[in-house]
């Protein structure tokens, strides 16, 4: 299923983070953070719990405003906001109980500018094909994760921000995530993943948050 894994018509923009600082409450999570990432690169974020990995991903996704510094994407397609170029997959899967796996993925695909008709193929691709017609509240945590991953394929976007993508997944599921990340990067996409599991990719970039406490 080669076409499903391509990052879409839009080429990935490059990411430039300069002097980023963020505090939660009275605690500074990071400051003077610089990151440069080119299309086709994979960045692995590591660091002890509570050092701001999720916060950094939500900053990059544009959900939060940084206290200082800038996050720039270039080049962006005309009339597009950075948010329209990226996928964010966090602790909450974005699935609504009461809808089937297929309807959830199809709705998310429509929301994210993808083709809802690809929901079924995407579910098969992530190994959740047989679950398509089940309401998501009966699925296990790992199965829900797979269904959530399906939207990355149903709505192709060049940038993937993945927060703990391996959570609750079995060995096969973890291999699937590695495969998806590798093929996305190979197709020119850009991936930032916060995880402590090895991604097993050649030339992967690492950023570790939470140096000496500030």
């Amino acid at each position, binding site marked *: 299923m080669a076409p499903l894994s391509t990052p879409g018509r839009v080429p990935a923009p490059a990411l430039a983070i300069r002097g980023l600082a963020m505090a939660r409450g009275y605690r500074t999570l990071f400051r003077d953070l610089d990151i440069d990432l080119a299309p086709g690169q994979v960045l692995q974020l590591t660091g002890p719990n509570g050092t701001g990995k999720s916060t950094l991903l939500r900053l990059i996704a544009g959900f939060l405003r940084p206290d200082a510094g800038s996050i720039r994407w270039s080049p962006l397609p005309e009339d597009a906001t950075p948010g329209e170029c990226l996928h964010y997959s966090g602790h909450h899967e974005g699935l609504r109980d009461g*809808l089937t796996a297929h309807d959830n993925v199809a*709705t998310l695909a429509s929301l994210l500018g993808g083709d809802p008709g690809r929901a079924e193929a995407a579910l098969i691709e992530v190994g959740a094909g047989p679950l398509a017609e089940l309401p998501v509240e009966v699925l296990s945590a790992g199965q829900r994760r797979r269904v959530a991953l399906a939207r990355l394929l149903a709505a192709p976007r060049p940038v993937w921000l993945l927060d703990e993508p391996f959570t609750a997944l079995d060995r096969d599921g973890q291999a699937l995530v590695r495969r998806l990340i590798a093929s996305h990067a190979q197709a020119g996409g850009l991936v930032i993943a916060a995880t402590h599991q090895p991604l097993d990719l050649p030339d992967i970039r690492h950023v570790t948050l939470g140096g000496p406490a500030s």
Partner: protein
Amino acid sequence: MSAWTALLLRDLRLARRVGAGAELGLVFFLILVSLLPFAIGADQRFISRIAPAFLWLSALLATLLGLDRLLQADEEEGVVDQFLLSGTPLELLVLAKALAHWLVTGLPLSLAAPLLGLMLAIEPQAMAPLALSLLVGTPALTLIGLIGAALTVSLKRGGLLLSVLVLPLTVPTLIFGATLVKEAALGRPYTTPLMLLGGMTLLMLVIAPVSAAAALRHARQ
């Protein structure tokens, strides 16, 4: 299919599937109206006189049902994050959600109201105006509720706070709506309250999506 239509259809499907308020609002309305004669007794003329106000109050309370989950369920599951990444403005997406809420609560209430008016011995010439007033006015109630739902989106037990926030803001709509039906029952023209009621709805149509979207964005920071 556009993001907007997809979201509208999804919310309508959710309302149908989980028994989440769609019919319950109507049943709640019916129960409130049938309780009134028990509380007041068999004074038909008195009931008939307060019926317009009471029907409007009941519609207001029935609209409040389910408002606390209108945005909260999506927020908790991380769907609002996905709204923010959609190319469609958040203002329009929350409007789609409000429209879905009105289609499953306000619209059936408006259509059923004349029948319930019958139970309260409302004047026959006021039945059509009653339905009209609710059709024009309940969208304003849903939209005001949308603001409250967005403001309380991150509160675990925000339902009561939401009612406290929303109810005072519904006063103008309530006044114009009940006045319209009262005037119609007395056989007088009701163009003025109808215009004011429509004006409230149009005003809320402008204010509510913008305020709700701003509240949702702020809740993340």
